[in-house]
């Protein structure tokens, strides 16, 4: 079904037909009310009509949400923060915890260019191959995200794991933030 759909006309106007997309747009982030989505869609369409071409060309979808997007869960004894950081390896993300604040810092590398560089002599008018970016939707550059946790956590025992671009930071709650069961004595 994906392949048979026609691309939208607005891509035809500003884009080589080569890269007309055939699937409906579905973006990863944002959990908006359907009416909000409709409004956003109108905003976007209107923006496309009146705006000057964006830096990376028409078709690029600037991310409106902070990077990285996080999901936070709370258990009895820990706060678990999960973040999607595709393209980063374990050394590429810097995690700092103080009190009830978690800071994720790092840098997303520029996309690697084509590997099939034409081989040839160096210098002497040898030009780089013409590279055309048709889509630049993945963000690049440095990021810093501060997440305020609902309770203070024990910074010394925070653990982080990175698997397939998904970072999971487990922050055990500080002892004073953990629920303390009070014994009721009968008088």
């Amino acid at each position, binding site marked *: 079904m994906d392949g048979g759909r026609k691309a939208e006309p607005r891509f035809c106007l500003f884009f080589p037909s080569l*890269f007309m997309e055939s699937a409906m747009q*579905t973006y990863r982030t944002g959990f908006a009310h359907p009416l909000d989505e409709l409004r956003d869609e109108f905003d976007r369409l209107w923006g496309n009509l009146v705006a000057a071409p964006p830096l990376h060309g028409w078709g690029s979808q600037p991310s409106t949400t902070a990077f990285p997007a996080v999901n936070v869960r709370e258990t009895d004894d820990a706060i678990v923060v999960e973040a999607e950081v595709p393209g980063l390896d374990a050394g590429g993300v810097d995690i700092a915890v103080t009190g009830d604040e978690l800071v994720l810092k790092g840098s997303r590398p520029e996309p690697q260019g084509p590997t099939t560089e034409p081989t040839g002599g160096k210098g002497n008018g040898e030009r780089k191959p013409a590279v055309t970016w048709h889509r630049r939707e993945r963000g690049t550059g440095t990021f810093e995200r501060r997440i305020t946790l609902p309770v203070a956590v024990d910074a010394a025992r925070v653990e982080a794991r990175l698997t397939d671009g998904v970072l999971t930071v487990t922050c055990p709650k500080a002892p004073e933030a953990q629920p303390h069961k009070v014994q009721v004595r009968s008088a």
Partner: protein
Amino acid sequence: MTPTITKTEERAGAAPAQAETTLTYQPNVDICDCGPEVLIVADIPGARTDGIDVSFEDGVLSLHAKVPARELPGRAIRQEYGIGDYRRSFRLGDDFDASQITATYRHGVLTIHVPRLAAVRPRKVEVRAG
């Protein structure tokens, strides 16, 4: 109006055992045309190598990546992204060599190299003084 919506919902396959609704997401991509090949880089965090399916048919490159459900304990207190399979397709044209398409997956990023057929690659013609 063309139904360009920001989020679409698809039932997860025809597997009756999988009763819960699974959302399918469109990954962010970079697409680069460098002449001899087209490079597609897609962010598909959470996918595993064995769950990624890339196919090229009738000039359309399709990618589908299964994302295994992640069991996280406790209750959600902030939810900024959803977890589900990735699916996106691109109409590239017919002048590509389907047998030479290669894809690599690393740290949640899928990189697909789609080389053009040798016959249609741009060729520099040497001009000699006569």
